[in-house]
């Protein structure tokens, strides 16, 4: 007979659940409202979602202040793990979402925005991602991951056109395969250590002195494949360009930022201890993957004719950069990862926002994709301000100082240098140079070519609205004046990462 368990409510630390519950409640509320009275305007749902995200953000902030005073907090039968990484990741997830979501209030009406479920799913997805980062149990990670993934598949498909479905189906199928890999990998670790909690796994493996290295490697291999797929590392990246192209630009931008940071945190949790415990194999394989990811995706980005696909490949490349931070695995590099990602978010928000603003419902004559380079040609003549802003984002993505992403790159490369990864630092630097080409290509089109005949400048801002413009404006300011934010960010992040033991 099992003993009844007595647990005091305080010991559960239910407060740790609070940030995740906020979007869940928000989502349910939205569904409820829709059931009670249908046909309400999207602005209401956007406002509600933003509201809940704000509350969420504040909740995370309050857990951040708890972290500052109490350090890492475990909760709900030690299932929740609120450490610095979790908080940072949640801040990025929720913060970035606040900016990406309102993009649906655009000048033109697209399918997803008219559906209240879109916002519900969006909030569920946020909740799923939050759960994912705030735990070290492989089970909760898996469930959170699937929650968000399933929501994302639907969100992509809700754009409701052939390419979106195609994208969703592709993403889904590959996601299912990755889920298989993930569960297999977890199984191996479980078999080895009898636990599915990363800390536990780490301590057991360390206690065994990595006796079953073969098993560990097999598990790591499967995990690497699964995570590699999720954050789009070469050769698991093949979904990314198609999915970006198929989704709306706003969604693509979101995909390039938010889910990935959650994954990075998980990867960091899982791989960091493996790398530090001298699993040289992982270091070598990660090294190869990182270099491949950065380099190959850059080369593919070179040959793209569509800006969104180009940005997709560029996002892959940036993910490679960030993986390098995990490979390096020092406090500085982990700090750099978050810094990089925050700055990358600001820039990518702007870049995809601009694409979104230029979205038209029908393809231009002679164009096969939404955002071909030609569409932007001669923008300096038709929409000078828009051209300059877009150019700014491109320069930032290229890592040109003093724009946002440069500082991330700087700190990241510096962490490589500090940790003795000289060659890696050089590879990163040279890849930035290669990347320069395709970002500059867009600038070339915008600033140095004549506009298409059919393009009188309205196309570029065809989908604009005050909201979209404000968000882009915010991204612009963020990108230009990033330098002033870097110092406080750096201190903040360093404190959180360092105190979480990474």
């Amino acid at each position, binding site marked *: 007979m099992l003993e009844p368990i007595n647990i005091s409510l305080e010991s559960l630390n239910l407060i740790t659940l609070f940030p995740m519950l906020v979007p869940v409640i928000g989502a349910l509320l939205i569904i409820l409202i829709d059931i009670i009275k249908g046909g309400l305007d999207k602005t209401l749902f956007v406002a509600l979602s933003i509201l809940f995200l704000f509350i969420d953000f504040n909740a995370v902030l309050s857990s951040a202040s708890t972290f500052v005073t109490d350090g890492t907090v475990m909760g709900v039968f030690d299932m929740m793990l609120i450490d610095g990484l979790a908080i940072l990741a949640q801040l990025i997830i929720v913060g970035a979402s606040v900016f990406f979501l309102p993009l649906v209030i655009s000048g033109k009406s697209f399918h997803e925005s008219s559906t209240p479920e879109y916002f519900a799913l969006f909030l569920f997805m946020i909740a799923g991602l939050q759960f994912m980062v705030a735990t070290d149990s492989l089970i909760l990670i898996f469930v959170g991951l699937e929650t968000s993934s399933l929501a994302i598949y639907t969100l992509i498909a809700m754009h409701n056109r052939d390419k979106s479905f195609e994208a969703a189906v592709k993403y889904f199928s590959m996601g299912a395969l990755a889920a298989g890999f993930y569960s297999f990998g977890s199984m191996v670790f479980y078999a080895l250590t009898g636990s599915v909690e990363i800390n536990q796994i780490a301590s057991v493996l360390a206690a065994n002195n990595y006796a079953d290295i073969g098993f560990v490697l097999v598990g790591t291999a499967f995990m690497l494949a699964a995570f590699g797929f999720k954050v789009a590392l070469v050769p698991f990246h093949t979904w990314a360009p198609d999915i970006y192209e198929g989704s709306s630009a706003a969604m693509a931008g979101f995909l390039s930022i938010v889910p990935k940071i959650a994954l990075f945190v998980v990867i960091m949790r899982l791989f960091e201890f493996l790398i530090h415990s001298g699993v040289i194999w992982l270091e070598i394989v990660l090294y190869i993957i990182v270099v491949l990811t950065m380099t190959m995706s850059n080369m593919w980005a070179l040959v793209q004719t569509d800006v969104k696909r180009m940005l997709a490949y560029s996002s892959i490349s940036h993910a490679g950069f960030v993986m390098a931070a995990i490979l390096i695995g020092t406090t500085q590099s982990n700090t750099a990862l978050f810094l990089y990602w925050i700055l990358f978010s600001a820039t990518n928000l702007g870049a995809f926002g601009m694409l979104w603003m230029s979205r038209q419902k029908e393809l231009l004559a002679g164009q096969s994709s939404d955002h071909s380079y030609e569409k932007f040609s001669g923008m300096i003549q038709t929409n000078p301000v828009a051209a300059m802003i877009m150019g700014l984002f491109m320069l930032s993505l290229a890592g040109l*100082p003093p724009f946002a992403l440069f500082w991330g790159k700087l700190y990241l490369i510096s962490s490589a*240098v500090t940790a003795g990864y000289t060659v890696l630092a050089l590879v990163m630097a*040279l890849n930035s140079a290669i990347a320069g080409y395709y970002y*500059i290509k867009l600038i*070339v089109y915008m*600033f140095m070519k004549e506009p298409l005949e059919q393009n009188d400048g309205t196309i570029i801002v065809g989908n604009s609205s005050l909201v979209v413009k404000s968000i882009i404006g915010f991204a612009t300011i963020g990108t230009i004046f990033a330098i002033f934010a870097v110092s406080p960010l750096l201190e903040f992040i360093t404190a959180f990462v360092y105190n979480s033991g990474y």
Partner: protein
Amino acid sequence: MLDNILSILIFFPAVAGIFGFMIQKDSMRAYGVSVATIEFALSLWLWFSFDSDASGMQFMEQVPLIEAFGISYIVGIDGISLFIVVLAAFFTMIGIASLSDTKNVKNMIITLLMLQMTMVGVFVALDAILFYVFWELSLVPMLYIIGAWGGPLRIYASVKFFLYTFAGSLVMLVGMLFMAYFYYQATGVWSFAILDWHRLILPENFQLWLFLAFFIGFAVKVPMFPFHTWLPYAHGQAPTIGSVILAAILLKMGTYAFIRFSLPLFPDAATFFMFPIAILAIIMIVYTAMVAYAQEDIKQVVAYSSVSHMGVIILGIFALNVEGITGSIFLMIAHGVVSGALFLLVGVIYDRRHTKQMSEFGGLASVMPRYATIFGLMLMASVGMPLTINFVGEFLSLIGFYQQSHTLTLLAGMAIIVGAIYMLSAYKKMFFGEVTNEKNKNLPDLSKRELLALIPLSVITIWLGIYPKPVLDPINNSVESVVQLMHDKSITDEAKSRIPNLVKDIVITRTSKEAQ
């Protein structure tokens, strides 16, 4: 105001540029000229307030930006950078004033003002990252200028220019990060301040690698053989104003950076690489001069001549003594003036005929005597005629390097021969002979606006050729402190013997911290 004059110099054009968006199109040129003139006046004021006898940095400003990572906004100026800043302001002014009627003149002027910000920034930055920021940022306006107003191959040329320099400087960035890391290791504090770095003594093998990393960044910019091929394209395709600024100021960033970074940071590596670099410089001098001789396009001749002259500058820098370095800095200014003027002159004829092929011309001396005269003057300055500005620089650079190697100086001295060959033959093709082409028969001579730009340049060319003292003195003082620093810092015997010790009687004890 004098306390913040450098920041004002940097950001005034940028702010003015942003305000420029509001200016009505027709008044834009007037606006641009006035802004540039104010900037130039400010730079002159800087010069007059500059204490020529001091060797250290002046007008320093320091604001921490990223304290945890040691990045600060530090600006300051010494004799090495002072005149390039003045020159940058001067050329922007002249450039805007002489701007012929181009499309989108508003964009052009705003771009030029932005470019000016980056140019001034590079030369006054005393923080490596700040330097890097301006260094990279300067590529963008230039990219736009070449790409939007250039010739038929403009996009290829501009992208090549951008990417080549960008790639090179990223390697340099890695070097900077290493340097900061070594500083961190030695002191426990992150710092990118150049003056802090100057105190750091690195082991020789570190120096060698870091020197190479910095070298790649600088060499592409200079541009040194074999990294020079972007330059002919950039010059060939750029509009006149682009070429002028590129040749006069932007190329100097590389050579300036050698003096600011490579020499004082890595004196032993500089000694170690002195001969290889000198050989590269000689190849630059002779080889590119020969290539220039083979050109059919007058602008390409001037472009390649730039490379050739930059070779002399490099040689002077790696003389590692006061004479050579002072000479090379002076030659930077001189080459700025002269090649800037030459590009302006090429622009004059291009405006009239829309071709730069020398075969299209001939006998212009009788059609455009004033033009021919000023061109001739600049030509003579370019080939290093004494009493013109170039000679002082070349003479000092070569005499400086002569201390290090006699044979190499002899080879490098061929600059005065090969330079004369291509320049004179180009001049002959364009200006001498009968006027054969009908289209050339009635070309108007220099207009007032063109003279406005060219006469000051001519005056400077002669004036500084005869009386370089006001410029040489401040340079000399600053260079002496650099050379002394190098001597004190150097650890190998080779470097100790190659780099002269200026303080003869005082025995210097090394107090700086050694990198662990």
